[in-house]
């Protein structure tokens, strides 16, 4: 798994945060599963442990993980995360709508085209 993309201009802690959010939401990491220790993830990614710590703090702030003193970090579970993801998707949709408006594209046209897409 490659977490850090060095061509990506975003700070590394943000990349780590995003990567783990995706893993948790997709169910690759299950509720109450233990996160890798700061030390082992920092070594695996060859990065500063403080950067990993910062990413974990951010994940905890956003409710994706919780800390048990002396034992480490664990994945949170439940509806809260889906609520969070719903909010994120809504923000992405809003950004797309804004982009369409900036370019003078009628949103109903976008929806029409999206309907024609097949997975």
């Amino acid at each position, binding site marked *: 798994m490659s977490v850090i993309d*060095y061509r990506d*201009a*975003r*700070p*590394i802690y943000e990349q780590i945060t995003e990567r783990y959010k995706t893993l948790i939401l997709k169910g690759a990491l299950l509720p109450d599963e233990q996160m890798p*220790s*700061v*030390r082992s993830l*920092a*070594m695996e*990614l*060859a*990065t*500063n*442990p*403080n950067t990993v710590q910062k990413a974990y703090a951010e994940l905890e702030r956003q409710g994706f993980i919780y800390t048990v003193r002396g034992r480490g970090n664990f994945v949170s579970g439940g509806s809260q995360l889906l609520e969070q993801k719903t909010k994120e998707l809504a923000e992405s949709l809003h950004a797309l709508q804004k982009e369409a408006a*900036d370019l003078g594209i009628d949103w109903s046209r976008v929806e029409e085209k999206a309907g024609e897409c097949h997975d």
Partner: protein
Amino acid sequence: MIETMHLEKSFGHIRAVNDVTLTMADGEIFGLVGTNGAGKSTFLRLLAGVLRPDGGEILVDQEKIWDNPARKADLFFVPSDFYFFPNATPQEMGAYFAALYPKFDRARYEKLLREFGIDRTRRIQEFSKGMKRQTAILLGISSGTKYLLLDETFDGLDPLMRQQVRTLFAGDMAERGLTPILTSHDLRDIEDLCDRIGLLHAGGILLSEDLAGLREGMQKVQVVFASEADRAALLSKVSVKSDKKRGKLETILVEANREQTEAAFRAVGTVYFEILPLTLEEVFISKTEGMKSDGDVRTDSLD
């Protein structure tokens, strides 16, 4: 913690380090960047107690470092041209540093040599530049010191070796609170690795900040203004560091935080604008340019 206060060092009439006041916190990676001849190496040599300051003070864990063997035992300095004894092998250099550093871990040193594929019985002078560099860094990390000072840290190391060295730092920081202090020409290395950076220019410190703070204070914006009047209106409102125009598209470096910048551009007529991520390189160039020709670069009307 290492603190310097109004540190000064001159060689003849050249002032290599000029009034540098800095703090390097425990358990953090501090990165020094600067133009060639900015005084980075001199600064590290002062920290290591190799050079005696002409003025000012250096405190390592609240004690002066000059002529202080107890504090020096907790600090290992890897200069850019690390000295190996003539004909010495890695094994012999290990024995030498084990005699100097009470916490030197010989078993770990030998294990690391094996992992890095370095023959401990070969003469170091036959090594390539990169292998010499690796040997020096392994000696440093095996010494078990709290502080590890590295000049031109990754010089001569291939990408795989860089990665391995960074992994070593990560492990020792998490396990025993190693505090690396490094210089590098590769700003991307510094940017990715360091908690805090100091920017040296012509011997003086230009700024010392955490990287997030550094980025917050400056924004890069790509914009197409709706009209000349809109352009003038914006330029009169914000502090502009640099402004490059290619066709209709302008790239402007603004000294402000993200919200202020966004508000300023929203308030005028634009066809399009986007705030782009700023690299350390861009911050570095804009800050050092600003020093060279004070005032000329700035085109703002504020302050």
